[in-house]
């Protein structure tokens, strides 16, 4: 190698290495800049922490309390300040609003609720807060296009009773089956299953009463057993035919829930319900009913959930007919029964589909001649989850009526929630 070529090679190496160094230096500067940004953020947070602690010290000095008295509940980091900034608001109830807006097109000529129009089916104003360490109060006030404002729920939950029993007292959705026990915005479909709407009420059942719930001790852990017993004022929900309209004679119910953890992705629940009540104000209990519910949930992936749920009710009615004051005779089915079966599949975080089959024998046999034994319906639906707090659903339902005739209904539902909105675990 000549001296000239050697010199050129060395210059090339130096330049090349400088080019090679350029990238790490840029990265180093970038990293340092990033570190400075992080330090700035940390200093800002620490400043907020100091301010918060100074605020607390001032409050403690004002109240005369010793710091140790407050320690257990003291916010320890600046992060808590947004919530802790207003201590007085900590005792305000949790407030939420749930709106259920429904558009419905039906081939039926009947003037049913919401037929062929867009309506606010229900606005729920939800309040709730612990009363003290042993109890909590929850209430739901409803507004609707179809009825006057009313109290759907207002009940106290009391914990810590002997035998690990939990008590609920007030107006509530009693733990009967699956669909009736949940709020409308938790349902997988736009409407209640037919067996629920025809026997218990079109929005399910909510009555004033007392309910006790406890777990049944068992030596095994694979299955959990929960027993609920309760009594409630007489009557059923709007449009229901299980019991009579009188509220004077209380009804009684019990529900046994058996829950299997089959695996971390699959679980099954089998429940049984027994109800007894009266069809009128006399002292007799003429109506007994048993219900069975079964639910299977399987997560195909964490984002894809498959749910199959079925529920059936069988009544035993000690009446075959009644004669009204005007002499009109009404015949009753002594052992009507009904069932629904629903499959729901969450295709993705945004989209879900499902279908439901309904079969329900009417309680009232008038007119005597029926086209078929029961009302039957097939429904299919598509749900779009816009976010955790808003959901859109399109549902088609075809119904064949026992009295003859059929109906095709298309329902479009929008459900939104604002504020704090918690649902009880089912």
């Amino acid at each position, binding site marked *: 190698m000549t001296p000239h070529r050697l010199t050129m090679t060395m210059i090339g190496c130096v330049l090349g290495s400088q080019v090679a160094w350029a990238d790490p230096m840029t990265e180093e500067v970038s990293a340092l800049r*990033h570190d400075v940004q992080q330090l700035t953020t940390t200093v800002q*947070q620490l400043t907020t922490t100091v301010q918060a602690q100074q605020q607390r010290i001032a409050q403690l000095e004002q109240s005369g309390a010793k710091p140790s008295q407050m320690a257990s509940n003291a916010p320890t980091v600046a992060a808590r300040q947004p919530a802790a900034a207003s201590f007085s608001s900590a005792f305000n109830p949790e407030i939420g609003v749930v709106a259920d807006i429904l558009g419905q097109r039906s081939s039926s000529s009947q003037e049913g609720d919401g037929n062929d129009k867009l309506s606010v089916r229900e606005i729920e104003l939800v309040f709730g807060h612990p009363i003290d*360490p042993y109890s*909590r109060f929850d209430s739901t006030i409803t507004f609707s296009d179809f009825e006057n404002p009313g109290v759907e729920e207002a009940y106290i939950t009391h*914990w810590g009773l002997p035998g690990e029993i939990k008590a609920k007292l007030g107006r509530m959705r009693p733990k009967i089956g699956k669909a009736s026990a949940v709020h409308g915005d938790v349902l997988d479909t736009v409407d209640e299953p037919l067996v629920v709407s025809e026997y218990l009420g079109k929005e399910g059942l909510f009555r004033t009463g007392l309910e006790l719930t406890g*777990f049944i001790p068992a030596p095994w852990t694979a299955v959990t057993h929960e027993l609920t017993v309760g009594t409630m004022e007489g009557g059923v929900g709007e449009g229901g035919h299980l019991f009579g309209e009188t509220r004077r004679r209380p009804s009684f119910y019990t529900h046994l829930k058996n*829950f299997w953890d089959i695996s971390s*992705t699959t679980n099954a629940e089998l429940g049984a319900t027994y109800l007894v009540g009266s069809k009128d104000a006399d002292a007799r209990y003429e109506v007994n009913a048993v219900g069975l519910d079964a639910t299977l949930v399987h997560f195909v992936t964490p984002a894809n959930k498959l749910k199959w749920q079925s529920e059936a009710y069988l009544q035993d009615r000690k009446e075959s007919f009644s004669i009204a004051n005007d002499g009109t005779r009404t015949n009753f089915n002594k052992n009507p029964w009904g069932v629904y079966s629903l499959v729901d599949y969450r295709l993705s*975080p945004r989209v879900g589909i499902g279908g439901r089959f309904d079969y329900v024998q009417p309680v009232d046999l008038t007119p005597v001649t029926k086209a078929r034994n029961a009302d039957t319906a097939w429904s299919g639906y598509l749900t779009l989850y816009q976010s955790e707090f808003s959901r859109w659903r399109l549902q088609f339902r075809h119904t064949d009526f026992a009295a003859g005739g059929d109906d095709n209904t298309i329902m479009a539902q929008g459900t939104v929630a604002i504020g704090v909105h918690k649902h009880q675990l089912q």
Partner: protein
Amino acid sequence: MKRLSLIWVAGLFALAAGSRDARAAEKRLNVVATLTTFADLAKTVGGDQVSVSAVAAPQFNPHFIEPKPSDVLRVKRADLFIHAGLDLELWRGPLLDAAGNTSVMSGQPGELDLSRGITLLEVPDHPVSRAEGDIHIYGNPHYWTDPENAKIMAKTIADKFSAVDPAHAQDYQQRLQQFTARLDQKMTEWRSELAPFRGQELVGYHNEWPYLMRFAGLRMDKFLEPKPGIPPTPKQVEFIERYVTEHKIRGIAQATYYPQRAAHAIGQHTGAKIVLLCQSVGEVPEALDYMAMVDYNVRQLLGALRTEAAP
């Protein structure tokens, strides 16, 4: 017949007394944690003196858990309930209400909020609303992904165990020291491996990695979710794809429970690698315990960072 009945009754009493004695001898602190990561830390610190279980299965998004009746029963019988605090587990309130165990409710001796003592990131400095998505009002709650915070959490757990069960306080503190020493050693290794990549940027699916990014010296400011909790929209996916290309970003980080379709599409078009990270112990088979989970996350990050930058 009468004699037979007496034998039966005596037998039942003996059985009951025997099982009671056995229970007393085996009495361990019954701990229920909301997440498997917390359960693992509790097990590490508590050893054989505690019985630990977790509510949320690790393969699910901790924000959206549906507690089951069996979870309710376990919380009902828990001596100690460990949770993330803040607004991570929105299902925690209904779970506690259903369980009705007054000794583990908020502010009671049996409650342990692990966010205490943690310096939180991304604390909102303005009034927040849902228009910003499913935003966390107290700050980002995924603090346990930074092993520095794990030391604070383990100490919080050890102190609580010591207070609730003073007879074994020395054991708890000893295990804490062992854990901290091992973690310090591992953190030095992890930092050393990550050092060459300080300041580099990744994109994420959901904003749940700021603490891990801080520990790793990396940046993550853009996400597939247009706003927290809102699934990726076509427009946002297009934006992220462009961003990844322009900034030569090497990895798209997301937890295993999010759909990977959007990240795959971006990866195919840009060459960026999908970085599947763990939020919870047990989320992948390799993440057997806390140390293994962080190690897995570091390996995943390094796997993407060591690839060639996107063209």
